[in-house]
């Protein structure tokens, strides 16, 4: 078969997927980008190259605050999740006996098979003034009065961290176990203690896995609407919440589109920040 015929066949097989992605992802994205440059006069949409939405973004405090809030929450969630998940993955990979590891991972995933919406709602119950956490804290005498946890940023972050700890535990675990055990042995054999082995050998070798997991966390977290909406108490709005307000209450598609483009830009920045270590096709 000639190279040409071969490549034509390849195109043929890939065509449906490429068409799908183009029609339902690329085209909508381009239309959305164009929409972000349109403007609303009353309820009439005016296409064109208007910077109105982006200018409004700079001017309206609640809009750029939303960007800041989103970034703060996402950064906190990413860091906290990685820091909590790494030891968990480590313990499952190296302390739990091999034949129990699969079970441990399965057990870690199971709670995430409740619906996402329901899970956030469940955190609301847990963090309520009369919820389990407050009751425990008071029984233990740590606090005298119930603490306000629900409807705060703490609640949003907790809800997110809950999900991403699981996700990152899986990715980091996968990275840890695919390392040849001989790296650890070699380091120990050369006199490194457990911490040194971690610090000088395991951590650098798992950095790509961490970067990939952290990026995934960033993407999913910054674009999520449910968790801040249910748990955040609306005292501060994230970008997706503001987008949904624009859509649901005003149908201001141009402004919503501009916000979506901003969200996209943030993700791209995050991507560039960890591109060195990332293998996107392994996500």
């Amino acid at each position, binding site marked *: 078969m000639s190279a040409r015929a071969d490549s034509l*066949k390849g195109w043929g097989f890939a065509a449906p*997927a490429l068409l799908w992605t183009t029609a339902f992802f690329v085209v909508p994205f381009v*239309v959305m980008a164009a929409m972000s440059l349109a403007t609303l006069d009353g309820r009439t949409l005016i296409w064109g190259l208007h910077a109105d939405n982006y200018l409004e973004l700079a001017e309206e405090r609640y809009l750029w605050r939303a960007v800041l809030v989103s970034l703060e929450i996402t950064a906190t969630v990413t860091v906290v999740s990685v820091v909590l998940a790494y030891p968990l993955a480590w313990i499952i990979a190296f302390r739990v006996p091999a034949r129990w590891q699969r079970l441990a991972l399965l057990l870690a995933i199971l709670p995430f098979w409740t619906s996402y919406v329901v899970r956030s709602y469940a955190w609301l119950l847990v963090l309520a003034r009369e*919820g389990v956490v407050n009751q425990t804290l008071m029984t233990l005498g740590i606090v005298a009065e119930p603490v306000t946890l629900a409807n705060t940023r703490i609640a949003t972050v907790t809800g997110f961290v809950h999900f991403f700890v699981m996700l990152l535990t899986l990715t980091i675990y996968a990275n840890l176990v695919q390392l040849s055990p001989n790296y650890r042995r070699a380091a120990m054999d050369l006199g490194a203690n457990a911490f040194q082995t971690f610090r000088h050998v395991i951590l650098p070798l798992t950095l790509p896995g961490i970067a990939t997991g952290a990026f995934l966390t960033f993407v999913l977290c910054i674009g999520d609407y449910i968790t801040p909406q249910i748990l955040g108490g609306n005292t501060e709005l994230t970008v997706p919440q503001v987008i949904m307000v624009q*859509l649901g209450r005003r149908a201001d598609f141009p402004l919503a589109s501009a916000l979506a483009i901003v969200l996209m830009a943030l993700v791209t920045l995050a991507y560039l920040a960890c591109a060195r270590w990332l293998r996107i096709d392994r*996500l």
Partner: protein
Amino acid sequence: MRVLPWLYLAAGFLFIYLPVGVLVLFSFQEGTLPVPPFEGPSLRWYAEVLGDDDLTAALLNSVVVAAGQGAVAVTLGFLAAYGLARHVVPGTVFLRALLIAPLTVSYLIVGLGLLIVVQRAGLGLSLWTAGIGHVVINLPICFAIIYASMGAQQQNAERAARDLGAGEFDVIRLVTVPMLAPAILAAYFLSVTLSWDEFIIAFLLTRFEVTLPVEIWSMLRSGLSPRLNAIGSVVFLVSVTAVVLAEVLIFRRRR
């Protein structure tokens, strides 16, 4: 020092199970509020949930959308992976990046983009449009999983089949698909899971018939109630059963 890891592990699992535990516990609440003190146990909310037509309809919709979009995503993903892995296509790197791209974009953006286009095109919103959106987000995952498993071993088996006189269709049917069955099943399973739990795209792209997460969302907006705990517990139970079955039937066999 020795117990520290186990304590951490226990704490980790406590954290992971805390909301689910509370959710399930208060699904048996007798009273109308799913907060302490616990009164019960009672099955009244389960009875109510199972008798709710909207919920059962939404549940069915979710199953149909998840299964259907999964089939489309896996089929398209498989064909693309096969085309790009087994034929020399110029610009493969770019095409792969294009196919993977939706993975790096928030669901909200995918949903918003599609919403705008569907409305501009004057089409109606329905379970179909939600399904289309779900394929967009799951196609990259299916493609990546299947593409990654198209290793040299498979390739040699395919070449051997061609060498023995099989046409391309026979090669795919008799060799490629059966050999990739574990990866294909895993991709299907994952995309069904993601669709099953997806909210924002389903919310933006449906109208009257909605999927379960959207239905639960509107229940949530209309009042705090152990009904939600009950429906959440039921979903949990069904999903866990599905996972365990899949684990036993699909993934056990792989090893």
